[in-house]
């Protein structure tokens, strides 16, 4: 081996030793930053968009790239391409998981639009009337729920995500108890909008838990401002009055 090659080999060896010595610091920084694995998102990128986009993401143009993917998803959506739409929704959220719109809209597309694409617009009544249709609706509802589950690391304290899950569970799978549990989680975030309290109470009524619903309404009423239209204080007051009457009548 001539001296130049020996020198290069020594340098590479020294670089490896440095890399090994610095690896605890590397891991510590990555842990502190909460950096996730890039393997999956890069694999998707290379297969679907080529290297140009991945370099853009590596460079930091994340939101721009994610928005472009979301835009291109609209083309697949118009063509009712299930695989293409699913792939691009997953890709957009993988590139930039921060915007809640990608998660909420994505879940709505999966749970509401895709079953109708599968059975055809002319046969949408099958999704309710036939067992096969209901199975299709349930299958896509489960897929949408699984998709929303993936948003937890980024939107774990976002009540809108729980509300979306509850809506899918209630309307698409008929799992009212599951929906109530999701709404409880939404209320647990402490930043839930007024509407979630009302939906939760109405769901409890549907589940036959009227006394609980009354307790929720009464506690909620105490916190409502007088001059906020969204609070719908008069509606809540009316529901409390009717629930009290119903509970009295049933005793």
């Amino acid at each position: 081996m001539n001296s130049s090659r020996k020198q290069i080999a020594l340098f590479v060896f020294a670089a490896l030793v440095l890399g090994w010595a610095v690896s605890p610091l590397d891991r510590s920084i990555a842990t502190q930053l909460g950096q996730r694995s890039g393997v999956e998102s890069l694999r998707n990128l290379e297969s679907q968009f080529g290297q140009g986009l991945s370099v853009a993401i590596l460079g930091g143009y994340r939101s721009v790239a994610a928005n472009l993917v979301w835009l291109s998803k609209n083309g697949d959506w118009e063509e009712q391409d299930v695989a293409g739409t699913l792939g691009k929704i997953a890709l957009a959220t993988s590139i930039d998981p921060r915007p809640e719109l990608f998660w909420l809209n994505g879940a709505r597309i999966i749970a509401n639009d895709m079953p109708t694409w599968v059975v055809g617009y002319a046969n949408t009544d099958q999704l309710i009337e036939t067992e096969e249709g209901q199975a299709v609706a349930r299958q896509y509802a489960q897929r949408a729920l699984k998709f929303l589950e993936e948003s937890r690391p980024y939107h774990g304290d976002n009540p809108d995500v729980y509300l979306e899950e509850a809506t899918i569970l209630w309307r698409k799978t008929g799992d009212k108890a599951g929906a109530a549990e999701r709404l409880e989680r939404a209320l647990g975030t402490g930043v839930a909008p007024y509407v979630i309290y009302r939906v939760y109470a109405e769901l409890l009524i549907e589940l036959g838990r009227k006394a609980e619903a009354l307790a929720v309404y009464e506690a909620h009423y105490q916190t409502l401002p007088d001059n906020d239209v969204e609070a719908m204080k008069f509606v809540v007051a009316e529901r409390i009055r009717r629930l009290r009457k119903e509970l009295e009548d049933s005793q």
Partner: protein
Amino acid sequence: MTTDSERLKWSLGRATTIGLNTFREAVRMKLFLAMTALAVCALASSFLFREFNFGSSELKFIADFGFGGMTVFGSALAVIVTAQLFYGEIEHRTAYTLLAKPLYRSEFVLGKFFGAWATVLCFMAMLALCLVFALWWRETSIMAEFPEEFVNGRRIVRYGDILGFAALQSIRIGILCAVVILFSTYATSALFSMVLGMLVWIVGQLQHVAVEAWATVDSLILKGIYALASFALPNFHLFDVGERLALGEALPGSLYGKLILYGALYGSFYLAIACISFNRREF
């Protein structure tokens, strides 16, 4: 025979002089001006592209654009300018005149490094100030339009963190400059240094993927390649803190400290090797 007292002492002053000359030469380069103009235009285009923004808030979107410009254009500039400035001296034989004078080769290497790095720092500072101005201007307009969105009239954007991001990217780019200097001490053309520099940038950016893949592949050969990429090159992905900052999170001081230490370790290592390599180079 030279005695110890007659021997030339290593001088920071000579390295600084070379660095300042390198910096002056670099800021006069058309490439530097073109790259700066391009990066500022890219940042300004975020105001046009905001119509295509579906997810994050407008301010986050503008911040993302600025962060992207700093990393992409800053890294490209670092690779091209460093290779041009260092290898250009050898190619045009001006290095021979310099090295014939009482000057250590390591002084030349360090001077060139600091000159090139200062050029990129200048670029980063300009872009950071443009980003701060763009965000401040837009935030002021939004505050006037929707005052209820700002609790007690407080601004949302953490301007100090944007400057912190620029500082961290400067460290990343410092490592890249040191790597390009190292390749230039071996290279037989500036293009060779640039291509290798670009490769290190991309592989360093993907280094965390190599670490992940290392644990998942079965092939021993692939494991060896991934291990080599994992340990032999710096992990530039660690400097991607823009996502956290755009989410409105503050970076802890300890993180800044660790990243500075990381950059200092790799930067000084590559520069030390570059000095050794350049000392042994025959002209």
